[in-house]
């Protein structure tokens, strides 16, 4: 079970409102199942700032068929 090489893409948009800027981060992740059986997995994505403090997170349960790759958006 792997995050595919170069399989993560992070994009962000910035919106202004109420005198503050808000950033929305969208993540695309390709998860590979290189085993011979289907797998029920959880993908956890955590954004941390430079000091290591986590500032955003997301989780997704997914099933990846044996030998297949799935892109999680």
């Amino acid at each position, binding site marked *: *079970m792997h995050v595919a090489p170069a399989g993560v893409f992070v*994009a962000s948009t*910035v919106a202004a409102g109420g005198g503050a800027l808000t950033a929305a981060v969208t993540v695309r992740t390709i998860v590979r199942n290189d085993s011979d059986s289907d797998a029920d997995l*959880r*993908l956890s*994505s955590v954004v*941390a700032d430079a000091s290591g403090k986590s500032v955003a997170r997301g989780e997704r349960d997914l099933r990846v068929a044996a030998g297949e790759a799935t892109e999680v958006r």
Partner: protein
Amino acid sequence: MWSLEAPVLYNLESTILAGSSVLDRVRTPFGIRTIRFDANDGFFLNDEPVKLKGVCCHQDHAGVGVALPDALQEFRIGKLKAMGCNAYRCSHNPPTPELLDACDRLGMLVMDETRMMAGSAEALAQLEALVARDRNHPSVILWSIGNEEPLQGTEVGARMAATMRKRIRKLDTTRPVTLAMNGAWGEGASRIVDVQGCNYIHLGDVDEFHRRFPDKPVFYSESASTWSTRGIYANDTDRGYVSAYDVNKPGYGDTAESNWTHCHQRPFVAGTFIWTGFDYRGEPTPYAWPCINSHFGICDMCGFPKDNFYYYQAWWSRNTVVHILPHWNWAGREGRRISVWVHSNCEEVELFLNGHSLGRKRVCVPHHLERKVSYRPGVLSAKGWRNGRLAAQAKVETTGAPAALRLIPDRDTLLADHEDCTPITVAVLDRRGRIVPTADNEIAFSLTSNGVILGVGNGDPSSHEPDKASRRRAFNGLCQVIVQARGSAGRIQLRAQSLGLADGTLALTARAHPRRPYVPGITPLMPLKIFECSKLRKAPADIAIAAPPGRKLSYSKVKPVVPEDFCDIRSFHGGQHGLVYIRTRFVARRSGVGKLFYGADGPVKIWINGQAAGCQPNASNPAKADEYQTRTWWRSGSNEIIFGLISNRGKASGVFARGEDVRQDAVFSTFP
């Protein structure tokens, strides 16, 4: 937000879990920022207009070639930032990812370029690998699908560009696609790309392009190609040097000043990428061999600034700049008129020779100042004024003869991780501590054992001295030595010596730091482990006249001694005097020149593939591995090695044998 001044980075941690067990975890650094190209107003970062003040670069540096340690990437990007440069074009191939890491950390925009403009499976695979690998770097703002391709202006070129753009879009919709075109702006692939990349002002008409395509953003993807050699003030065709006044350029190019004036006057031009930030090996135009590196750099091969660095710094950075050229060592030219230039962004500049004012002049944006000064030795100085107040000053002085060396490190603390390194400027000084701008003394370096000299350079485009060396001549007062830490913390002491000059010394601090996970290199010496030995025979009077064994001689296996891989033959002579033949094999995948290293403790003679290959009548006691060596030609496949060993009145214990595995891919076989 990630910006040029404060490049804030975040980390995304992606974890795959099955239940509570972690199966894989990947860390992706990224930045939050917005980018936009506008056809009338140029480039915007986080909705702020940013003129692209860029340079094209090859990854090539003195002393190391293209094998740049990460610390040198950081040094080079830092040097460009100090000039006011905010954009880097990876010309004309994908960069090493560590370069992009440095740009992310330091705040440098990047035009990321694939190597091949084509619709072939191979070209598209390379393009996709590039985009997938680099798309999380906030520094990357543009995907370039190629450079100066003959097909760029044709229908075929347009179709290639469309295919390539489509593939990029699948992987990244957030960055525009461009192509660096030397002409045919508006034709062929031009119609496909999101942003028009123009190479060289004179290879088209950008104003006409903007009128015809008012909705297409445009920038100079390559420009200027000004020639200069650091510290040289007259063209010298014999030595392969070009004057560092901003006057020399190829027909298609521009001086720094005419190029920037053109870009500066056109708000719709998003910016420019100067060819090049640093000199690089090859392309020594306007000369040819024996001149061996380019003159295009704003900095030389070592990253030492040429005078144009200060032109750009004056008009690109926020620093207050006053820079005078040339140097002021013109013995023998007293009374002759010398052209003096000043690069400055002050409002007015006043020039002085030995304290006497030569007059004050207004600076016109973005131009240099120039006047002839009748040479007298001493101090030529300049004061820069803003709002009637002194803002900055500079001077050049007539120096004395070389007297001492000084070592100036870029950083004085290194991580002891076998990787970290720093370039050290080696300056030749006169008695009063001033850099002698014409000095070319040869300098030798010595270093304590906890550091390594990675390489040396001096920026001389015609120097044929080796870069992998511990000595170098200065070129116009300077050379560079790059020192890398090994694995032990402590002080790394460097000494520089030159005949007749006081030594230069420097202590760097190496701080303990874990080494990055790595796969150790394969030792190029392969121990031979499988031996056979004959029965004891009558010894000749002299080992030199021993004959090779007959084909039918029979051998028995020798029990190997581990871990020394020593062939112990004591049980074969049983303490008696005589001769034994010992047989082993070296199996190489490919043929090539190599060596056999061996040790024995009795008179020994060697045959490789039936040919006598060495004789040591005085082989020592006890046997030492690698005591002797013999050069040989390894055949592809099995090579038979036979030792004839005289048992030395029953005292000899055996032999060591190791084959030099030149290509590091030899294998061993058991006997048939």
